């Protein structure tokens, strides 16, 4: 079914409860508002990702200049992961909004694929953040125990 035919059918359905012209206008307004919202939310997600990438790049350079220990890169990567997760949340929100005005099955298929990729990445990043946070906490606890053991033996 073409877009105009589907729109005509939808308008015919709405006409049962409101005049056809008003229904047509309401649908057009809804599409415009949702399209505008999608642009805003998508731009916010992209901005968060760009800020995270720039922040991480500066952090990597700073770690390289101050200490070249590999462990010092973990907090910077964790922060980048948090930024990416937040950006993904925005982008997923825009995907959900976009499904409200998607006209064809192909676009719906693309949205489903994009949403799958974003959801999978969000899941993996969250898991990695939790895992690396656990490792950092364990390393700190081991350091504290070693310090306490050193203090009591003196």
């Amino acid at each position, binding site marked *: 079914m073409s877009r105009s035919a589907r729109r005509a059918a939808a308008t015919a359905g709405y006409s049962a409860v409101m005049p056809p012209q008003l229904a047509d206008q309401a649908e057009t307004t809804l599409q415009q508002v949702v399209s505008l919202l999608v642009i805003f939310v*998508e731009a916010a997600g992209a901005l968060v*990702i*760009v800020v995270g990438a720039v922040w*991480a*790049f500066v952090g990597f350079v700073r770690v390289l200049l101050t200490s070249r*220990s*590999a462990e010092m890169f973990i907090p910077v990567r964790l922060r980048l992961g948090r930024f990416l997760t937040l950006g993904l949340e925005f982008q997923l929100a825009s995907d959900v909004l976009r499904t409200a005005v998607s006209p064809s099955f192909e676009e719906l298929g693309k949205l489903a*694929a*994009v949403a799958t*990729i974003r959801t999978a990445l969000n899941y993996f990043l969250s898991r990695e953040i939790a895992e690396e946070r656990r490792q950092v906490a364990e390393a700190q606890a081991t350091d504290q125990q070693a310090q306490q053991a050193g203090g009591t033996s003196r």
Partner: protein
Amino acid sequence: MTAALHLMAAMVALSGLVAALFILLGTRRVDVTVGVFLDLLVAAGLLRLAAASTWSAIIGAGAILGIRQIVMWAFRRGGRALGGWRPLITRHLRTESGT
């Protein structure tokens, strides 16, 4: 907005390449280098996906995600295998030398 997003995606990918190169030269740790490079490459892929939801961008982003997961899993597994074997090797060497 699409052109700006494509430009930013390219710049983030380039920054990932530069950062990875310097980290490799500074630390000589391949796992850290690849991790940083893939993280920034994923960020670039997400920006490209936000710019245009074409099938090529979708497949590209999916491929980067898949490669990232496989590589990170391989590094984790390799590290764990080394950590698991190292005490056994040390114990064996101590037994051999009689200490």
